[in-house]
């Protein structure tokens, strides 16, 4: 088991009232799962992604990532979990514009304390996996949107995390690039990666093995999809 969320609630104070964004969410993710969580804007899917990604902690409920109870972790422990256990792919790539593709990909390894030579070797390997071995020295503004997202995916997988977490990974891409990125996710899954993808696009969500829907903070579904 990769993660298990039990009766997760997330509330935000709104003046004198409280906004219940996630309500009794239960989610279990096993190794090599490929899950899509689909929901409309404002449904709570980004909040759920923040919790799964350990960027935030639940108001109540238990979130176990491996053997670790995330609700009791300090800021530094959460940073370590994000660095070692989770690979993030964001909708808008979030690449640092003054850094080359190789340096962008190597960044999580820098925070993990990996030596420079090894960082560069592993980053080059990750770029090879996403098919950008010939773009290592390129800056983000010299790459297309699809290539930038592939660099971001390389950055997400470079530390060999247990979980790949993608937030609207094709949201900023044209359809051709979107298809290429989804194909890459499929290949990564086939090679053993566990993936959770957050999207509002049913066509994208359909490409995962398992689909959940979230609406008004309530998570439902979880049935395996038949191709």
């Amino acid at each position, binding site marked *: 088991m990769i993660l298990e969320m039990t009766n997760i609630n997330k509330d935000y104070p709104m003046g004198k009232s409280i906004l219940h964004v996630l309500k009794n969410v239960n989610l279990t993710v096993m190794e090599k799962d490929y899950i899509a969580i689909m929901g409309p804007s404002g449904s709570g899917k980004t909040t759920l992604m923040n919790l799964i990604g350990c960027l935030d902690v639940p108001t109540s409920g238990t979130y176990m990532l491996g053997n670790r109870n995330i609700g009791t972790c300090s800021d530094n422990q959460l940073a370590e979990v994000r660095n070692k256990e989770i690979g993030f792919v964001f909708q808008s790539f979030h690449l*640092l514009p003054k850094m080359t593709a190789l340096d962008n990909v190597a960044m999580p390894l820098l*925070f993990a304390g990996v030596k420079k030579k090894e960082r560069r070797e592993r980053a080059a390997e990750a770029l090879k996996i996403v098919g950008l071995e010939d773009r290592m020295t390129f800056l983000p503004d010299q790459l297309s949107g699809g290539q930038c997202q592939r660099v971001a995916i390389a950055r997400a997988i470079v530390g060999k995390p247990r979980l790949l977490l993608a937030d609207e990974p094709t949201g900023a891409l044209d359809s051709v690039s979107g298809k290429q990125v989804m194909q890459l996710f499929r290949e990564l899954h086939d090679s053993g990666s566990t993936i959770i993808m957050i999207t509002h696009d049913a066509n994208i969500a359909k490409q995962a093995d398992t689909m959940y829907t979230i609406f008004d903070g309530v998570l439902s579904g979880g049935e395996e999809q038949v191709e």
Partner: protein
Amino acid sequence: MLENITLSFQGIWAHKMRSFLTMLGIIIGIASIITIVSTIKGTNEQIKEDLIGSGNNVVDVTLKQDNTTYEMGYGGLPEGVSVISEKTRKTLEKLEGVKEVSLYRKRTWSENVFYRNTQYSGALYGIDTHYFSVNGYVLDYGRGFTDFDNRTFHKCAIVDTATSSSLFGGENPVGKVIEINKEPFVVIGVAGKLQNSGPKITTVQEYQTYAGNSSGSIFIPIDDWPIAYQYDEPQMVSVKADSTDDMTKAGKNVADALSVSQMKTGSKFSYAADDLLKRATQMQNLSSATNRQLLWIAGISLLVGGIGVMNIMLVSVTERTKEIGLKKAIGAKRKRILAQFLTEAAVLTSLGGLIGVGSGIGFSQVFSNVMGTRAAVSIPACIIAVAFSMAIGIIFGLLPAVKASNLNPIDALRSE
């Protein structure tokens, strides 16, 4: 740390103009401080050199009566004061800080000294064979005194260049006879001071100190002194110190030794050193005190520079919120973000400090040429200046760095 420094340089290079403008306050502040410090150091060296003579390092030890200079009369040695022997002189040369010792007697305003009908009114010295070496005299022509001259009481004299022209009116003085208290002395040589050994006289006080030199000097062997003046008079002692900084110590050591060996217990007489070094230090302190006020003013510009750095770093944190959010999302801990921004501020201000030091050295040379003063670069001051700039970066970079490190990654990633 090395990664952070490399990233900082990349950041500075990526925003060259902004980085330069940020550093400008630090550059101006440090350049002002280095200019002032170099000028202070140069002035101090000038004062020391002007007052005590570059490379000469001579301090005079003279007899004092109740702590004031003993006025030479016609009574010879005062009661309870004995003549300093050659053996004692040699003992003095072994004291700490002492290089060479010369014994001499002197009349600042000599009377009854004539060449033909021309009266001489300069200084008259009875000197031993070490005097010229200690005081930096060289023979222009003729010969110097020998032990034989002293031993045989040979009535001979050496004149300096000033006396040569004033008393002999351009004639070659060597071989001429001068009359000292009706005793004939044959001039055997003309001596002049080495270029770098004479003190430059720039004040009335200094003129009084070296007045004897300006009217000329006549030297006779010290053993001939009683022939001219009837009595054994107290000797003065010229002490050449090992270095300028040893002058005070050497002078004091010699004076203390003589006060013990040449006096009876309870005597109202004592030997004391003319502490030119102390006087130079006092003048230097006066000069430094004035310039220290300028340093405070320059320090204010550094403070303004530091505030400028803080302002730009705060802007930088705002501009790079997304970057900070991303780094935190992919595993950067709080202290890493803190260290990154502190390093950036420190690198920026250190670079500013280095440029400031370079500019300061340049300005001090220009200032020195324009104002005619001396500038001397102080290496410790340069090192301290760069370290201080770094400290300014760390102090003023702290607030922006803390702000950056406390950013919530979710909010930071969402920011536009």
